[in-house]
């Protein structure tokens, strides 16, 4: 038992503070409003209903011949207009590196999501009181969506919670919204996952180290508790 006590005390020195941070961030996740934590307060649901049945559509085979080889071609809508999205390189998930080309489905001409188009898409996705006051293109990772690996437009709105709308530059896909509430929740996720380099992951060395220390702490504590119980030291005195 002496060693169990020593283990427990040393483990508490190593991981005690982090354990408290895990619990405090944990209770925050338990109590938080998930809509707020996901930055969705001003996120409008976009519902394109107009079916595209039109003689003016260029045949996909012609579009394919005019472009780089594609894994897939999809008829999509951007701001209510039909486009073909060609996928040249397909990753397992949209946030990973994918290679796309957008083509106007009426003219077969290439189409780029520029600042104006990104702003228009963002406006449709946003139903808050703010107006756009800044637009920025991120070519490297973005702190709000650390897993996103493709270039992304960030459209800032001037509301009180600092909403930003993120649009993938190569596809026009809405990655998501972020605001003060999400950024606060992200701080708690960072603390819980010990993700201080903001990789959006809990599989990191420091977390592994402290997880082992936490195992020592709780297992030694568990044995200690059983020992106290067996010795009959859990007594209610009157």
């Amino acid at each position: 038992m002496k060693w169990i006590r020593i283990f427990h005390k040393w483990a508490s020195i190593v991981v005690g503070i982090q354990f408290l941070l895990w619990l405090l961030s944990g209770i925050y996740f338990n109590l938080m409003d998930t809509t707020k934590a996901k930055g969705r307060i001003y996120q409008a649901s976009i519902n394109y209903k107009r079916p595209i049945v039109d003689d003016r559509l260029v045949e996909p085979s012609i579009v394919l011949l005019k472009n780089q080889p594609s894994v897939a071609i999809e008829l999509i809508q951007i701001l209510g207009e039909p486009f073909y999205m060609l996928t040249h390189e397909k990753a397992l998930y949209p946030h990973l590196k994918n290679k796309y080309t957008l083509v106007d489905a009426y003219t077969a001409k290439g189409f780029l999501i520029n600042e104006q188009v990104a702003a228009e898409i963002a406006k449709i996705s946003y139903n808050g009181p703010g107006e756009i006051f800044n637009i920025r293109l991120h070519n490297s990772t973005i702190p709000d969506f650390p897993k996103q690996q493709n270039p992304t437009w960030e459209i800032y709105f001037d509301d009180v919670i600092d909403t930003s709308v993120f649009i993938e530059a190569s596809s026009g896909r809405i990655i998501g919204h972020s605001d003060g509430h999400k950024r606060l929740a992200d701080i708690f996720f960072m603390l819980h996952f010990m993700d201080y380099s903001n990789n959006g992951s809990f599989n990191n060395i420091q977390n592994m180290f402290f997880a082992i220390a936490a195992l020592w702490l709780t297992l030694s504590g568990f044995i200690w508790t059983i020992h106290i119980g067996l010795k009959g030291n859990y007594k209610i005195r009157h």
Partner: protein
Amino acid sequence: MTIKRNLKQYTNGKKVLKASRKIHKWLMLFIGIQFVIWSVTGTYMVFFDIDYIHGDSLVVNHQDKINPDDIGYSLSTLFSDYPNADNIRLSTFLQQTVYRFVVNTESGPVQFLLDAGSGKKLSPITESKAIEAAHYYSKLGNVKSVVLITDNPPFELNPRVLPAWRINFDDFGAPSLYFSQSTGELVGKRHTFWRLFDWMFRFHVMEYKDGGDIGNWLLFVVTFFAILGCVSGLIMTYFLLVRPTKKLATSHKKISRDVI
């Protein structure tokens, strides 16, 4: 004055330490087991790479290119045959160029898979096609069993992708691949490590029903008392490291001796 103050601090310190010990001892009798569960499940989740858990290494992400000459069945013909077709995409299925689209009917959306050469309907895909796809889109070993799931999906499969073929492999981690019967698309990849992860997560957030609702009241109550337990433990750690009571005790003795 100093002696008095030191003595007071000393007794206060002793009281705090004693109270912390008592709180810690009693709280842990009731919630200590959850501390063990948190650290065991947390360690599992931290150590297994999340991409591996998601089964990314089970599948092969082929980059088969569409040959435009294979498209004998044009989009305009498709629209005349299926005027309500929506979400239309062309890609490959087992190296064959195919159309996939959805038709919204009164009884819900219906998915289609057509051969882009002839326009022939390929859905619903047969068992042998599903097995062929399972081999082509993975490098897994022998197929152990095949099940068509039309309702009551297992917890590891999203009900929205039904009907689906479940292909179970005789391979490391008992992997299962799921292919949509209507589109032939890979709609699920699961193995023992995912299934374990799912259990671990449920135990971690104390959610024993369906879904992973972390906002449950049980978790709140236990975490609330866990914070008390943790703080009382940290107070003891503080006394262990800084030993203010011991310091005060020695200085008190020293001062007393000097006075006498």
